[in-house]
């Protein structure tokens, strides 16, 4: 048995599920916990964890899939850029299918745009170095887990004198949206399963203010089935005892102070800004844009382009789903007008989106 298999041990996982059932036996109102990270959403569906939990524990999915919270306006700008004859768009694969106001990158690729899927932003820098006559734009989306690698690509381009590499940056940061959700009177969250790898960068201390201001338990939780259920058990115990503190379940990776080196890179290359979140709106200080001293690498400033007028898709409940207020099955478009092949909302696009996970594993 390898190391990660030990966190998928059936006896261990079912033992945790039994303990959660015993702890919550007789509760007349279910405890509602939100997993904020898309990888948690996937793990919960992929391993069928909901089917192991008692009805007294309800898991809802929050705004933790980076593709899903990327707004139409960003996609529209990326699409406008890819239509320029000398622009090569480089991106992680998930972004291809995300619908903008009237098109998607996948459609533009079929029409002839030069759009390449890369596995690391450093590959995009290499493409730029090999194609000096092209302007190579990397689509920089994601949370604090991906942002340091993109900061690294800008530093690498600078060090190698690659001047035709640009980043269209729309990074999001945690935990600001969790504060917005905690303050929402329509939403009663009894605790958060805090993201695993984001927390490895920002540190578990980042969640303390949530516990203090909103009296909500926070447990930084790993992605394996036993991790998730142990995270749930810790949340149940806090909720039943009326406590609200930060705990680290994922102690094999996450420290209270986080990764100082990655934090320093982020502070050097990026500047916090008021970022727009799909379905949630503009949240103060919740995103990272490229800092002024690296403005030459900022695609938005360096490559002016006419962007089409913003159109939101009617009937799509992505916003409410991202806030955990409704489940994908409540959306009138789910599985009919909106499927992974022809998604209306971003939650259906990314493999980590709540709707895509529900479509693939949950029906």
């Amino acid at each position, binding site marked *: 048995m*390898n190391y990660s298999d030990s966190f998928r041990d059936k006896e261990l996982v079912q033992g945790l599920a039994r303990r959660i059932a015993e702890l919550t036996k007789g509760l007349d109102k279910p405890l509602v916990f939100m997993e904020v990270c898309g990888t948690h959403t996937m793990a919960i569906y992929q391993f*069928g*964890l909901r089917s192991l939990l008692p009805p007294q524990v309800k898991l809802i999915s929050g705004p933790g899939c980076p593709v899903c919270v990327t707004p139409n306006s960003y996609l529209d700008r990326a699409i406008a850029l890819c239509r320029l004859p000398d622009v090569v768009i480089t991106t992680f694969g998930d972004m*291809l299918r995300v619908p903008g106001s009237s098109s998607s990158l996948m*459609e533009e*690729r079929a029409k002839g745009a030069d759009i390449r899927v890369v596995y690391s932003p450093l590959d995009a820098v290499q493409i730029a170095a090999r194609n000096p006559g092209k302007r190579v734009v990397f689509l920089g989306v994601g949370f604090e887990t991906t942002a340091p690698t993109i900061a690294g690509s800008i530093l690498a381009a600078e060090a190698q004198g690659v001047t035709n590499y640009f980043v269209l940056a729309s990074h999001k940061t945690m935990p600001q949206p969790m504060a917005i959700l905690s303050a929402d009177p329509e939403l009663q969250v009894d605790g958060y399963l805090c993201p695993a790898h984001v927390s490895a960068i920002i540190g578990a201390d980042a969640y303390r203010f949530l516990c203090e201001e909103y009296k909500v338990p926070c447990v930084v939780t790993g992605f394996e*089935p036993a991790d998730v259920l142990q995270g749930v058990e810790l949340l149940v115990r806090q909720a039943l005892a009326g406590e609200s503190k930060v705990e680290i379940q994922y102690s094999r990776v996450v420290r209270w102070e986080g990764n100082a080196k990655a934090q320093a890179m982020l502070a050097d290359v990026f500047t916090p800004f008021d970022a727009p979140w799909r379905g949630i709106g503009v949240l103060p200080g919740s995103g990272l844009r490229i800092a002024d001293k690296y403005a030459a690498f900022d695609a938005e400033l360096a490559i002016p382009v006419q962007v089409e007028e913003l159109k939101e898709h009617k009937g799509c409940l992505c916003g409410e789903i991202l806030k955990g207020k409704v489940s994908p099955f409540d959306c009138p478009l789910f599985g009919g007008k909106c499927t992974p092949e022809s998604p209306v909302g971003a939650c259906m696009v990314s493999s980590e989106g709540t709707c895509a996970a529900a479509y693939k594993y949950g029906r």
Partner: protein
Amino acid sequence: MNNDLILLGHGSGGRLSHQLLEELIIPQLSSVPVAGQNDAALLNIGGIKLAFSTDSYVVDPIFFPGGNIGDLAINGTVNDLAMMGARPLCLSVGFILEEGFSKEELARILASMREAAEAAGVAIVTGDTKVVPKGKGDRIFINTSGIGAVEHNLQIDGASAQVGDKVIVNGCIGDHGIAVLSAREGLEIDSGIQSDSAALNGLVTSLLPLGSALHVLRDPTRGGVATTLKEIALQSGVTVTLDEKSLPINPGVKGVCSILGLDPLYVANEGKLLAFVAPERAEEALAVMRRHPLGEDAAIIGEVTGTSSGKVQMETVVGGVRGVEMLAGEQLPRIC
């Protein structure tokens, strides 16, 4: 959204491919509905039963660990015939070459085609070669068509799965897709995984003595085991329940999949078959497979647990239950 264009996902073997067949191709060209389609057509010509199949190969890169586009083009069509229980007799080969393609690489591809055909016991009897201007093709595309003799009276068909059937796979899943992916430029993962590209007609011959206990044979190529099982469940109107812990998966494939966020159930195979066998003969079928060089890691991975409108579900390693759907769009690596 614009639905007028062919997207890459239309060639994925998943739901979009099915849609294209259902909405555009089959209404124009075939009287057999998509749900009745098998890997090869069965023909009865003057009392002689034949299987007939065709397939085109556009794999990128053309050379990958464990094979190349040439042996793939032979094995793929041989396997489509074998899945009807047919004995492959002869193949045609069509090449579309791009101007500027290297003769040395073509010679290597031809050599492995010859070897693969010999290994499968099939003759290449006719062919065609076209060259397109540089930039109008991608180095080399190959089409092969094949004819096989059907020498049994069994009903081996995607629509023949029955409640109680055991689902058997002849070895580790996902090897081909991961071998190709790790050889792709820009990824360069040294996974040590080799493609499983192989002709399965010999293995099928050893299964035919199971007679009427052998209900379905199908090779889970594009779209992987999940998509193929979903097709069979839909065709037969049954529920298939998989047992995740019994899925044979190479640790290297597991590793690459977890790095890239892929699900091995959706990754392509080129030397695997899924057999639906009546429960009383399932252990015997498993033993037959394990004695064959292409079936050493064979395993019973699930069973048909009821009738339905075509449901596939899986009991996960931790004892939870989840649904299994067809591949949607392309399998895209995840972002974080």
